[in-house]
């Protein structure tokens, strides 16, 4: 099992608020890794550090090392390059509302300078296929806007858009929390399919979802990584009492 992301002594701040404290972990390649924890525990900040999004906040600051493959992302790569290699899907689907479905998917490639029509067509189809959306939209690619799709379809469109630039890692911050159970199941099936090709890191409040899709799970609390282990271990017999108290609802 190769390591896709290696995080060493990562610290993050919002102003004076020390939101992540000395996080170290290895995220295995071609697996789904779930991050769980109560609101404000630092899990979203953590994923935003993995693709240098945290530093876009004027009061955000990061120290420590994040290696993606052989690259130290803070020392050896630009934020733009890193965000191409590490795609991100957010809680609320955010397609470009005025763009067609096709243009939404092609937008990342165009930003990176791709203009060849044939290549774009191929990538758009492949990405929509991978996101399990192709069959539903193939006849409306240029007729309908991204915003005209249902919530679940919009989220899969955003996943297709992220996949189009061929990332190595997909970060998903509560990707199904705004979706109905059917759309959620589709996203979960998709995560299952995608992890053979991509490394997936998913932040979720839904512990059953973490149990269903992820091989490994990390539990964050008060900016610290309390426990990181195989998902089945975390949900059946966690080592740390704090993890057990959280997942059994004995908190507070």
């Amino acid at each position, binding site marked *: 099992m190769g390591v896709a992301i290696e995080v060493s002594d990562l610290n993050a701040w919002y102003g004076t608020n020390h939101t992540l404290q000395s996080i170290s972990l290895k995220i295995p390649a071609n697996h789904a890794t779930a991050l769980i924890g109560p609101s404000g525990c630092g899990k979203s900040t953590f994923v935003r550090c993995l693709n240098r999004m945290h530093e876009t906040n004027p009061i955000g600051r990061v120290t420590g090392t994040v290696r993606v493959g052989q690259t130290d992302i803070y020392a050896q790569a630009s934020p733009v390059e890193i965000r191409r290699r590490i795609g991100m899907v957010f809680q609320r689907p955010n397609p470009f509302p005025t763009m067609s479905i096709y243009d939404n998917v092609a937008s990342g490639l165009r930003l990176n300078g791709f203009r060849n029509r044939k290549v774009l067509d191929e990538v758009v189809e492949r990405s929509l296929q991978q996101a399990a959306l192709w069959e539903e939209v193939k006849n409306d690619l240029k007729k309908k806007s991204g915003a005209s799709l249902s919530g679940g379809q919009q989220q899969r469109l955003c996943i297709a858009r992220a996949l189009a630039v061929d990332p190595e890692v997909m970060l998903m911050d509560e990707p199904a929390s705004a979706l109905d159970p059917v759309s959620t199941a589709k996203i979960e099936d998709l995560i299952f399919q995608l992890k053979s090709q991509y490394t997936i890191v998913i932040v979720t409040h839904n*512990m059953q979802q973490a149990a269903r899709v992820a091989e490994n799970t990390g539990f964050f609390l008060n900016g610290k990584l309390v426990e990181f282990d195989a998902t089945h271990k975390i949900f059946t*017999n966690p080592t740390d009492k704090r*993890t*057990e108290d959280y997942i*059994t*609802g004995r908190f*507070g």
Partner: protein
Amino acid sequence: MRIRFHRKLDDLKERLLVMAGMAEQAIQRAVEAYRVRDISLCDLVVRSEISINSFEREIDQMALDLLAMEQPMAIDLRFILAVIKINADLERVGDQAVSIADRVRDLQAFPVVDLPVDIPRMASLASAMVRKALQAFIEADAELATSVLTMDDNVDKINDSAFFALSNLIKEQPRHTPQALHALMIARNLERVADHATNIAEDVIFWVRGADVRHHQST
């Protein structure tokens, strides 16, 4: 805090303990019926089985509802799994009591003879195992549960020696064969009760420690 959920877990535990009390009493009554040849006690055992079976269904349904509605995790999930298994074991303890009661009824047709098997002692050991396993369940005490596992060998030994002694009796005094066979089956029933107590103790260890110690496994 999931207060309502944890109250429901407490309710589940309480119901299981009521059922456990009935199963334990059924064994005591069945063995007492054997000791004093009292058919009225056999009737009580058979009647209590109806209640035990109804408890089994009720507890399974409660556990199923909690699994479906509450999606328990970790120690709570292990607790519910342990309850489901202990529930099945207790129901089987009730069945063993009924089997003993049936044997006692059948024995009424034959004269009382002195048999080379100490059924009351075996019953007292098996009952002590059940009681200790349930105490471990009440107190979530994995150490106490572990101590139950070592007691099973004693009951097995008595059962083995009863088998040889009663086989010899059948050979040497064939006219006492029916009584010896019934006693042999009762010893077997009590040996099964001890096995159920062992299962219950293993389930308590699984619940408390998350360790699977069945079949001499240590993880």
